[in-house]
């Protein structure tokens, strides 16, 4: 059975090379002639297709189920930070409907500014989950919104695997497609973003990305306007889903340009590209968050430029066909000389327009893509996010594992022969490698490319090895049976007429005629097909080498599977709001975040404002339903800097800043008691940096001792007096009998005994991971105590200086 599958894959392989050329010509007779050499193929394809269908089904199941580790090991819950926002938006959508969703002004966040959610959010994911929920409810399947959200990502990763199959099939045939699909189904990089509960844009967007590429290649191979339209719609879905759509709208023009430059222009290329730009841009502009950006920002200029170029080229080809070669030469020189002048003028205007805008028309995130050091130099808020950092080599190995080694082999396989489709895949790979090197988050875009390339490489290698073995076996059997050759040609010619008809419909009608012919044909014609192939491709390895190579390939694949399962189970399935640790007395659960959020939601007033560092904004609004000052949608740097300034100011100043923002509670995350490393003290440098970037009286050197943020006895007084230090370590020393040992920083804290004058501890969770403080009300002025008030006025003089620091006064 194994051998049979292998031969199926290898058989399926040879076809698309031919198809790539044949399709656009609609050359039906040629089809038949080519197919004559493999008369048994219709049955084998029929069987192969059923097999491929079931393999795909299993791949889908695999992709879905490998992502369920998080539900099984932890629980069915939304993960991390951004998914909580998406979940909240989905809840709003299902409760209030689509029109309210578009007009939703959220007053629970960015107090007192608020945020227009409908116009600033990529709605694809939300609408998808909302639609699924609605369909299920119309069928009386009362799944909760949460359940739908939790399982959206695994479902879409199954879709993504199927899309990868389709794309790779267009490039290199079914075998490579299946291999790529199975690789993508469990590539750790994608798993990290799409485990059950990781309800984020990327989960849906990767599917949309691959599917858009597939439709582009499909259009390119067929020249069908139908697929071109589908392609625009798929692109629209991608625009709805993720900001990464700019990758598509830059990559496809690049590929078009590449085709034109290498002389591969054809009407198919025009059909694949022009409708995408026109329809795609129009559709993209419908998405509120994109709007006029679709024509106004520099990210989209490349597509319009290439749109002009392709029209010029098309015109040139058209005129070339009309005029005689000599006339064409004259016309060309004329046009080029005039055109050059015009072009220079246009470009000059364009450059002037772009240069006049402060960021040169590029958004900060895009700029940091082009210049990897841009963000760390200029925008601390982008640099402060760990997923915006450049990746390290281990992270490549962690995220794509053996694919990193298979990719070069895939590139080589794509060059033999180089088609439009394979050149696109190569370009995709190269670009995504670059982007993944800039930002670890974009490893996600690179992963599908790596899977496709590795799928091609693996299936090609498999192909060669199995072919060699089969060749060896056939030679062996030939030498044993001398009369075997007589039977073969007889069978070879008889069903010819059927085959011609069969193959023509083969792709259009899903193998139906071949089903009808099933009984007529027999399954004994393996040898001639092998023979014909070996004649076509002389690359045959020695049998021992190929068996050994096969063994190694399977070993490699097994290693990849083991790694992926490990990554899915251990590394990427923790929901980050619940932490667990294994100790000698069993599993210990740290559920402090939800403890704090539940406390906030039940025991504070509905309109109370909670200030925290922006990381916890989404979670606070979603789980505690309280108004926050800043959240993970970091659109207003000044506002975040205000909170950063408050956190790094002394208590009194911080109280004034928070009071002017109507803040009632301050929430800090503190890991010192249990050793939770990503707490607010470790994030403190970003508060100082971002705060100091806007309010210059916060100076980073004040917090540094020997170039380090320290909280031990060496810490600077500014550090020890900052609000963050005080709120984190308030009465911490009493937990371990006077030592105050911080388990994250592995040191005793610097200032152990102190009191809070303007804040009051109102809640601390069981493991001290979240501490909530309340702003004390302003103290009443006490009458009759003139002496004290006098001393206060004297001490108030320096304080009036500090009040000026308050950016809200």
């Amino acid at each position, binding site marked *: 059975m194994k051998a049979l599958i292998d031969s199926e894959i290898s058989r399926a392989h040879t076809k698309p090379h031919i198809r790539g050329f044949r399709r656009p010509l609609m050359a039906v007779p040629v089809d038949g002639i080519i197919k004559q050499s493999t008369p048994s193929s219709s049955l084998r394809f029929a069987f192969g297709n059923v097999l491929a269908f079931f393999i795909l089904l299993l791949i889908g199941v695999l992709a879905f189920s490998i992502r369920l580790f998080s539900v099984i090991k932890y629980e069915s819950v939304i993960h991390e930070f951004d998914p909580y926002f998406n979940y909240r938006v989905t809840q709003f959508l299902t409760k209030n409907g689509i029109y309210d969703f578009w007009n939703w002004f959220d007053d629970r966040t960015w107090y007192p500014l608020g945020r227009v959610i409908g116009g600033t959010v990529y709605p694809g994911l939300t609408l998808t989950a909302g639609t699924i929920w609605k369909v299920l409810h119309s069928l*009386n399947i009362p799944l909760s919104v949460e359940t739908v959200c939790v399982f959206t990502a695994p479902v879409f990763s199954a879709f993504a695997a199927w899309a990868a199959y389709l794309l790779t099939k267009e490039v290199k045939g079914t075998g490579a497609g299946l291999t790529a699909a199975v690789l993508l189904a469990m590539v750790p990089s994608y798993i990290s973003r799409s485990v059950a509960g990781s309800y984020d844009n990327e989960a849906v967007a990767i599917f949309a990305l691959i599917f858009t590429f597939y439709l582009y290649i499909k259009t390119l191979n067929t020249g069908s306007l139908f697929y071109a339209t589908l392609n625009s719609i798929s692109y629209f879905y991608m625009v709805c889903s993720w900001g990464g759509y700019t990758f598509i709208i830059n990559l496809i023009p690049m590929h078009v340009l590449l085709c034109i430059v290498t002389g591969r222009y054809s009407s198919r290329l025009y059909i694949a590209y022009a409708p995408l730009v026109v329809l795609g841009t129009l559709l993209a502009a419908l998405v509120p968050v994109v709007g006029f950006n679709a024509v106004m920002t520099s990210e989209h200029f490349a597509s319009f430029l290439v749109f002009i170029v392709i029209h010029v080229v098309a015109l040139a080809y058209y005129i070339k066909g009309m005029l005689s070669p000599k006339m064409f030469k004259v016309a060309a020189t004329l046009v080029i000389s005039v055109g050059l002048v015009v072009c220079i003028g246009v470009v000059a205007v364009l450059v002037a327009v772009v240069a006049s805008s402060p960021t040169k028309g590029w958004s900060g995130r895009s700029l940091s893509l082009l210049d990897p050091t841009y963000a760390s130099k200029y925008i601390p808020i982008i640099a402060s996010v760990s997923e915006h950092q450049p990746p390290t080599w281990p992270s490549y190995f962690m995220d794509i594992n053996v694919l990193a080694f298979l990719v070069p082999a895939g590139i080589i396989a794509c060059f033999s022969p180089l088609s439009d489709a394979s050149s696109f895949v190569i370009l995709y790979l190269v670009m995504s490698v670059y982007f993944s090197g800039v930002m670890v988050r974009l490893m996600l875009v690179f992963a599908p490319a790596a899977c496709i390339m590795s799928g091609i490489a693996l299936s090609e290698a498999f192909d060669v090895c199995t072919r060699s073995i089969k060749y060896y076996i056939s030679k062996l059997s030939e030498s044993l049976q001398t009369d075997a050759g007589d039977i073969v040609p007889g069978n070879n010619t008889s069903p010819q007429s059927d085959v011609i008809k069969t193959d023509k419909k083969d792709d259009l009608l899903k193998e139906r005629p071949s089903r009808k012919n099933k009984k007529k044909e027999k399954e004994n014609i393996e040898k001639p097909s092998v023979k014909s192939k070996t004649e076509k491709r002389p690359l045959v390895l020695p049998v021992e080498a190929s068996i050994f190579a096969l063994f190694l390939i399977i070993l490699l694949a097994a290693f990849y599977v083991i790694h992926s399962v490990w990554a899915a189970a251990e590394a990427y399935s923790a929901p980050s709001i619940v932490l667990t640790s294994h100790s000698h007395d069993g599993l210990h659960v740290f*559920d402090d975040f939800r*403890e704090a959020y539940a*406390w906030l939601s039940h025991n504070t007033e509905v309109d109370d404002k909670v200030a925290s560092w922006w990381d916890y904004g989404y979670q606070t609004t979603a789980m505690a339903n309280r108004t926050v000052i800043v959240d993970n949608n970091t659109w207003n740097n000044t506002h975040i800097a205000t909170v950063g300034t408050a956190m790094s100011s002394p208590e009194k100043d911080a109280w004034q800043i928070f009071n002017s923002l109507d803040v009632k509670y301050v929430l800090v995350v503190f890991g010192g008691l249990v050793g939770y490393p990503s707490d607010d003290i470790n994030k403190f440098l970003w508060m100082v940096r971002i705060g100091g970037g806007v309010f210059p009286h916060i100076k980073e050197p004040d917090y540094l001792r020997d170039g380090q943020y320290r909280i031990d006895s060496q810490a600077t007084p500014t550090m020890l007096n900052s609000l963050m230090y005080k709120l984190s370590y308030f009465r911490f020393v009493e937990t371990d009998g006077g030592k105050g040992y911080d388990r994250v920083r592995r040191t005793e804290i610097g200032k152990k005994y102190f009191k809070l004058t303007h804040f009051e*501890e109102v809640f601390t969770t069981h493991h001290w991971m979240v501490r909530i403080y309340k702003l004390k009300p302003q103290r009443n002025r006490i009458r009759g105590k003139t002496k004290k008030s006098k001393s206060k006025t004297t001490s108030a003089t320096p304080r009036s200086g500090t009040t000026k620091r308050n950016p809200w006064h």
Partner: protein
Amino acid sequence: MLAKTLFRTPDISQHLRLGSILLLPREKTRVNMEVFVARSRLTLILSLLALLSLSFRSSSSLPSSPSELQILTAERRIDLASHIIRVVLTLKVQNDGASPASNVLLAFPPPQVKHLALIQAAEITGKKKKKAVHPLDVKPSDHTDGPNGAKFFSISLRNPLTSGGSVSVEVSYILTQSLEPFPVEISQSEPQLVLYRDSSSILSPYAIKQQTTVIRTPSTKVESFTRVEPSSQIRTELKYGPYVDQSPYSFTPILIHFENNNPFAVVEELVREIEISHWGNLQITEHYTLVHNGAKHKGGFSRVEYQSRPSISGVSSFKHLVAKLPPRVHSVYYRDNIGNISTSHLRTSYSKSELEIEPRYPLLGGWKATFVIGYGLPLQDFLFESNDGKRYLNFTFGCPIAETVVNKITNKVVLPEGSKNPSAVVPFSVDNRAETKYTYLDIVGRPVVVLEKENVVPEHNSHFQVYYDFHPMFMLAEPLMLTSVFFFLFVAAVAYLHMDISIRK
């Protein structure tokens, strides 16, 4: 006119007290003394007035029949150990009238009626070893003309009491939310003190020859109690009486101020959904809104004190609750709307299951928490077939969590799709509604019997029955629907594959 002021007397004294204390909170102890003196004087005067007025009115204002009865001995035991007040009243009633009496009336002051959760009565016959208990029927009486809006409950005796005959009746009733925290707000380090108001003598429409009242407090820490001689405190018991020859409607307000650190766990709203599946499962989902109804927490909450000194810090708070679930319970979950709550333990045994749950955070006074408990049960333990072919569900009514008061409970019994004529039999009065619920693949919807009741105590955990008609064929509706959908899907696929719909030939 005088009688109208009767029940207001405790209120007046309260106003005086509260007012004076609120004015000068820092000099509390001194004021307490003053107030105590003032109050006892006041109550003495008022009770004297009350007695006078009653002796005036006894002949004219009361309905004719009760006066013919009199109570020979009355003993009242009030248990203030938890926040649910359980009172046992043992009466020996004698008929002095000529005609036989079939009813005995009980009177309650209006504030108590509001908080009265349950009242039961039984007739006691025999003594010591031969003691037998016969439950009696208690109904709210339509007598509305008690002084100051006193409400009556009427006990129907088994046999009418003949002239001169006597009978022993034991009445037990439960009061909820009658302990008033004072001070209203406490900080983390303070114990919880509460006030209990009642009368030293039993409010009754009949004259009582001899009566005693014993009040049990949870600890010896009693700040103060109204002295109505003879009264005494022996360890955790306060004894009032014996008082002799009290006229009808005598009422002497007493006020007991004592420490009670028991968890004041109140479920503000409990929605239980009991879903019957004839495939063998009974699924119960309970939505709780829990609140600590004791003295409100004031100021900050210090975790370090709470963890290091649990005996003096947050003594009135509670961390965990125990829910008693039926035996053979399975797939228990405990979560709230932001996910699973990991702090719970399930102990199952042959006779019962105990689920120990901890809310996400300890509940201090006034803090709230919401959560959901869900579990499955084997259907054969709870669903039976009655003699007339109807099926009935036999399930407990109340809240499974021990020692909690439920302000409002809603039991929703979801019957399987296709069942008809649902009817509920509940041993006490409830509001009954019908609804329809649509869940997995329902077409006509499932009938839901909704039973609502307010002020529910653990004693309400008795069984109720829901009867309905059901044909077993309906069990197959959904599997058949699913299979037919797939069948038609495959038929369509086959048909499509056998059709040639291409235009080009």
